[in-house]
């Protein structure tokens, strides 16, 4: 039984670890002044958003704490709702340089980013990944029931009666993705 489920959940697990690793690692770097390559962009964004009320080292420290917390949330798979909120907040933050530091992120706004701009644009993949990993834990009842304890393979490949997978009435006893991770 347990073995059978593995293929279906392996990918989100990998994704969860990947996210956790990147968040935690790049977060930790920010505790060490001059070590994080994203320091300038990150601190300048926070500083300009707080109207320079926060100084660079405070801004960097706050970001470090935030990113490490999100990273740990992903890695240990704990407090999914808190992680989700922090994650979404952080993601919105990462896109802010495109608006507040336009000159430093675009060769020509809005369709020709520079390296930094591209680095930020790509976070949309992060957003999608985090969303995929966390959403089932945050809104369990709204999520497509992908994994059935009863008949795993079939419920995935061929939903009963060809009904959309989101139709929860059709598949009564399901286990939630994420909660049944076998790792």
């Amino acid at each position, binding site marked *: 039984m347990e073995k059978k489920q593995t293929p279906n959940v392996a990918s989100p697990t990998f994704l969860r*670890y990947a996210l956790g*690793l990147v968040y*935690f*690692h790049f977060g*930790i*770097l920010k505790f*060490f*002044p*001059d*070590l994080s390559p994203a*320091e*300038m962009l990150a*601190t*300048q964004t926070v*500083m300009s958003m707080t*109207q*320079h009320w926060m*100084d*660079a*080292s405070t801004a960097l420290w706050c970001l470090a704490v935030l990113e490490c917390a999100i990273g*740990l949330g992903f*890695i*240990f798979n704990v407090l999914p709702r808190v992680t989700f909120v922090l994650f979404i907040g952080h993601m919105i933050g990462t896109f802010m340089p495109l608006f507040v530091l*336009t*000159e*430093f992120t*675009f*060769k*020509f706004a809005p369709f020709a980013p520079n390296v930094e701009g591209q680095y930020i644009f790509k976070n949309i993949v992060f957003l999608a990944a985090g969303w995929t990993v966390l959403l089932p834990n945050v809104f369990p009842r709204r999520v497509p029931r992908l994994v059935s304890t009863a008949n795993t393979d079939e419920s995935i490949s061929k939903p009963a009666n060809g009904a959309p997978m989101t139709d929860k009435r059709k598949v009564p006893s399901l286990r939630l993705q994420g909660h049944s991770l*076998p*790792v």
Partner: protein
Amino acid sequence: MKPYMSKILQLLLVVAIVIGVNWSYDQYRGTGLSRVPQIGAGRLEAATPEDPSTSETEGDESSPNSENLRTEVTRKDYSVGAVENPGSVAPFIEDELMLYPTLTKGMRTPFDLWRYYGRGVSSFGSPILPMRFEQWLEFHRKQKPDLMSDVEAYMASRFDFSETPIIGEFMSGGKPIMEGPVARLPQSVSTYEELASMSPSEIKEQDLFPYKPLAHPLQSVAHMVFPDEWVKAHPEHKRIDLDMDFPSSYLPEFPPPMFLSTHKELGDVTNGREVTLDNYYEIFDGLLTPEQMEGLKELLRPSPTTWFNHTDHRITEKPSKGVACFDCHVNGHTNGAFELGPDSRPNMARLRTDTPTMRGNFNLMQLSSKRSIRSMDHFSEVEEYFDGDPGMQQAIGPRAAKREVTNRMGDMNSILDYPPAPKLNPLMRLIPELANESELRGEELFHGKAQCVKCHSGPAFVDDYMHDLRVERFYVGRPEGPIKTFPLRGIKDSPPYLHDGRCPTLHDTVEFFNLVLELNLTSQEKDDLVAYMLCL
């Protein structure tokens, strides 16, 4: 896999990252790329063939493996047993200071730069902007209003610019002189006398010192900032990124009178005009030697600078011809433009310096606050318009001032005289019949209780030494080190005071020295000292 196994793996992952990053940081700091110094160790430690503790045997030069290896010598550890030798040189206090923020050109910098330390990415600059020029303009169009309102708020938090003049006292050309002290006292202290009764460490601990350094408000560009009055007359020097932070009333008069040591009888030779390339010949023909005339022309001829030039790497909307010596040292005096002293790296470690006067520089043995330049000729030669950056000159053009030319500039500088001081006798003492009670008491204090004369003596009231006033005893910050004594002859004409202008009035300088020299002067005594300095 068992659930607890996965938890253990997760934990290991986290711990590994923490250890790895920590290790990387220790390896990275102190390397050429890192802005964080390595504490207490030479940079090339890895190249040392032996552990220094094992190679105690002195003079073992025949040792074959040390022969061809040049190793970096690190200081010996003289610790005896458990008594640790702290060493004579503490590199910095990491816990108290913060690393300079990572920035690129144009980005805002902290106003309290004294709280920061570290090295720069490089000693050399480049003429490349981090963005297209149109974006550069747009960026500053957005940033400047916010920056200037923060600058204004910051200056207002430090100084009370009430613009109250001292009744009956004027600069040589007639501009009113402002009353002080204008530096604001912290809330918890009600008078300067109360503050002066505290010890330096008490003032430091409670963060009460009112004369902390002033920073250039936009250190990532830095460069010269001209006063509003100057910019009104010379709109080509209007910066897109920043304006002057001092109100005009606390700056020198513009245009200032110009006195020649060769023509005392003429008084102000300019008749109230600003000397320019257009009018200099007409004003000076028949007054100067040909050498001086040529020097004057060179002092008036603009040349491109790091940020005032014809390339995109500039802070003016239109391409700029550059800046001339007399654009800051207008009429051989100063208009109060400020700059960074081109004496240190990274830029953020450089002191903000107000333009000093050139009047009476013929008497000075030390020129510039930190570089100890020894002659006017040499100063004209080295004057680092480019922020001392040879990396820029390929794009901007060299100064092209040959030594013959800079010697001529020196010839002209050498006849710029002080303003008249009719109350002083040849020994630079007050003539009693001409001076009032307060001024005479001030002179007495200057030579006595206040000890000013120890550093301010002779015809220019300067000792031509550099002194480390150790002002960092009064606040947590990076020490500023030795700075030359500035002369006090004609001092009423060149506010604001100290190298960075942190003392906007003469009253502030007296409060400053009262604290720094721990003099405990009474408020009457302070007024007397100011009255005296107004006579010099």
